[in-house]
């Protein structure tokens, strides 16, 4: 057999998923998902059971799709799983590090299982353990590590073979706030400095917002939205105005001035109204109307989207 080695296509999108459906016996985990992802740090958000882990397993070629097509780095994971996985790193959700061997031994062994020759495996092991801040502890048994150190060792095994794509499943699980910040910082460096495309699956929107520049939201196996992070947190084009009393009079006065104002605030506050910011500049008109009615004004605020809006 003289088959060409399967290698990532240089121009292929990192992930391309077309009409992907995955059905288990009783549940549909992924439902007609279509998605194309380029390079960057990509957040994959969704509630528990939304299908994040299933998607990751399919991208790794560990689960077959029920229907639809998948290409990771231009390679079909269902056909060339072992070749593809040489270029993909995976950090599972739970701690899966055996306690009785050293980080060096485990990571170097795993590097070879990702296709690296043994000398390169040893060299890169000491490199990545330094990058994740475990250089001093690298010969100590993992059982003596703190949770944060263990998690960083688990990240090291996922990047030891210099993957083109790194899949992280809830990487801050079980970490205390400082461990969490360290991990997020490492993930950001991995994506930006190391130039490895990261897909970060998490149900913690704050983390995603902190490190990701692209976001994929899935819910019940369906794609909710995929867009640049900035698009999710941009201004909404809605102004919230809050007055102590006399809201309805203000709505009437603003409407008379030609401003689209409604007394139906999303948060159910009886003192707030919303003003659409389409075309006209309503700030002076609001000031005039409030002054004329002599209403006690509390605030005028430009509302921003938050990631939470996605799951409302």
């Amino acid at each position: 057999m003289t088959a060409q080695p399967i290698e990532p296509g240089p121009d292929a999108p990192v992930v391309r998923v077309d009409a992907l459906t995955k059905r288990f016996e009783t549940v549909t985990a992924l439902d007609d998902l279509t998605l194309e992802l380029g390079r960057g740090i990509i957040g994959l958000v969704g509630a528990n059971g939304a299908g994040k882990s299933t998607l990751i397993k399919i991208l790794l070629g560990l689960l077959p799709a029920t229907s639809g097509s998948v290409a990771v780095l231009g390679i079909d994971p269902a056909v060339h799983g072992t070749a593809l996985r040489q270029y993909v790193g995976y950090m599972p959700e739970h701690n899966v590090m055996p306690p009785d061997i050293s980080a060096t031994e485990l990571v170097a062994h795993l590097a070879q299982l990702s296709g690296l020759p043994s000398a390169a495996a040893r060299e890169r092991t000491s490199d990545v353990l330094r990058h994740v801040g475990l250089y001093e502890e690298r010969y100590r048994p993992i059982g003596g590590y703190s949770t944060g150190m263990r998690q960083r060792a688990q990240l090291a095994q996922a990047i030891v073979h210099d993957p083109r794509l790194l899949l992280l499943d809830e990487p801050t699980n079980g970490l205390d706030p400082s461990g969490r910040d360290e991990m997020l910082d490492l993930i950001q460096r991995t994506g930006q400095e190391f130039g490895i495309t990261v897909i970060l699956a998490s149900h913690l929107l704050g983390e995603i917002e902190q490190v990701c520049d692209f976001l994929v939201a899935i819910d019940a196996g369906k794609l909710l939205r995929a867009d640049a992070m900035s698009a999710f947190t941009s201004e909404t084009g809605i102004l919230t105005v809050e007055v102590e009393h006399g809201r309805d009079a203000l709505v009437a006065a603003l409407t008379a001035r030609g401003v689209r104002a409604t007394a139906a605030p999303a948060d159910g506050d009886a003192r707030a109204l919303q003003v659409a910011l389409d075309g006209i500049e309503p700030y002076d008109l609001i000031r005039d109307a409030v002054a004329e009615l002599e209403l006690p004004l509390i605030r005028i605020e430009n509302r921003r989207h938050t990631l939470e809006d996605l799951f409302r």
Partner: protein
Amino acid sequence: MTGSIYDLGYRRYDGPRLGRRHAVVALFRHSLRSVFGIGRSGRAKILPFICIGLPTLIAAILVAVRALAGRAGFENVQLVPGHDGIYPVIAVFPTLFVAAQAPELLGRDQRYRTLTLYFSRALHRPDYAIGKLLALSVGVGVILILPHLVTTIGTILLTADTVKGITKELGLLPAVVGSTVVIAVVTSAIALAVASLTSRRAYATAAIFGVLIIPDIVATVVIGLDLGGVSQWVVLFDIGALIDGANAWFFGVITTNQAAFGSGVPAGILTLAALVVGAAATGFLVVRYQRIAA
């Protein structure tokens, strides 16, 4: 190096990625090392060392006994076990070895769910099972082959005509290699199949002893009762008898296993049954790893 301690920055890897075969070989080599306790604590080396050392020592003693007995003119010198009879003498050591090392090979990865990290790499699930089986088989093979090697060296040295001694030993080579491979693989496959069922080391060790030893005791009793009919075929469930029968078949001698001998079942059939059991255990192991959660 200028002795600087600056962060070198992240270095890319542009070297070769050697693929699945390399991954399986790496898994095999790593497993083989741990089977012998290499790279493990001193305590982990004790049992492998005993299991390799004592059979070799026993073989050396037997060679010496044969030499002395021959020189003293004893007629029954042929009764001292040689290549054909060494396995039954040392059988306890491979059994001890697999009972201790098979759970060691599989248990850790199961217990700590480390399998996830293996399966997300350049191997398929069955590759993992096969790599471990090869490693344990080679481990058992070393235990079995060293006594043969000592016997061979001893025989050649003790034969007055060296060429004749070498010729005689060469003639036995197929039987030595064949019996060693079959015994090593079948014993290892059974031990790993049992060990794959639990991540608890102590249970696995006990279960392997049970599977390798208890059927022999039962079969020996049942066949000893001489109930007639099909009762002697119970020997087919006696793994100890099957392996001993296979050893006897390769060397063309009569089995020394009580149950195998008492059953009257031909050694060829016992050998075939040993191979079937080995294949079934391997198949079970592969299917088990195909399905195991990771």
